[in-house]
């Protein structure tokens, strides 16, 4: 199984992401005015909303990887799925943490069993469970198939998270977009959104390579069987079970 060796692309993306985040954070913390009602606490939006957008994207990417793995049975989609699950857990944890820090000064509590927060916590723990499942299942084919199915089941919660603020009477405000906020807030929000998106793409790329290398080691054949087994490894996933 070929493992890409060039790291120039993800590191370039990472560098651009860091520059965008530095500029966006400077604009958000030093240049943008405080919001009329929430004051300076509103500045958390410039990191919280971009994290939310990227989290929804990475959950959707995990769903796409799971579908493609189950329909094509090729290992590259399982490697991408492994990376997506881990990054999804990271971003959903960050989202809950930032939301909690915002909730304390605005709602008076660190946490509330509000529909948005509850459905997001369910999503975090569902994908944490899928990551744990991948860790504990040794057979690569079973691990890939089970985690792909679990990802599809877990993804059902994503539209529920998104629409929870519209469907139920939620403490959480409705979605913010560049069109619904003051134009003073647009640039820091946009730059941070691009920065976090690029950082997520770089992390996914690097983590996918780690997953591919780990899988190649895991199913590497003994030296004397190498030609035949190498041909088997290049076959779809079901051929290795």
């Amino acid at each position: 199984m070929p493992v890409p060796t060039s790291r120039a692309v993800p590191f370039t993306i990472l560098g651009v992401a860091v520059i965008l985040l530095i500029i966006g954070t400077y604009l958000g913390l030093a240049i943008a005015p405080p919001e009329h009602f929430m004051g300076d606490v509103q500045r958390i939006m410039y990191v919280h909303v971009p994290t939310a957008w990227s989290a929804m994207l990475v959950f959707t990417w995990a769903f796409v990887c799971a579908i493609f793995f189950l329909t094509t049975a090729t290992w590259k989609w399982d490697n991408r799925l492994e990376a997506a699950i881990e990054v999804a857990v990271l971003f959903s944890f960050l989202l809950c943490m930032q939301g909690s820090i915002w909730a304390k000064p605005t709602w008076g509590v660190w946490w509330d069993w509000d529909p948005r927060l509850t459905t997001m916590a369910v999503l975090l723990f569902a994908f944490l469970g899928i990551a744990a499942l991948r860790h504990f299942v040794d057979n690569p084919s079973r691990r890939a198939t089970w985690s792909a199915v679990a990802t599809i089941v877990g993804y059902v919660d994503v539209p529920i998270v998104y629409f929870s603020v519209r469907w139920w009477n939620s403490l959480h405000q409705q979605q913010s977009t560049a069109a619904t906020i003051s134009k003073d807030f647009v640039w820091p929000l946009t730059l941070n959104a691009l920065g976090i998106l690029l950082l997520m793409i770089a992390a996914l790329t690097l983590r996918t390579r780690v997953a591919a290398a780990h899988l190649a080691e895991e199913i590497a054949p003994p030296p004397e069987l190498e030609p035949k087994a190498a041909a088997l490894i290049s076959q779809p996933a079901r051929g290795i079970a």
Partner: protein
Amino acid sequence: MNGILHDGWGFVYAAYGLTAVILAAYVTWVTRRSRQS
């Protein structure tokens, strides 16, 4: 003007700081593993 809330900067710094530290730690960890593989 600071809205109806006061002393909100501590929460702002906490949100940005923790996010930066966690993201930097994850990217460093993934980069190291990527180099080893």
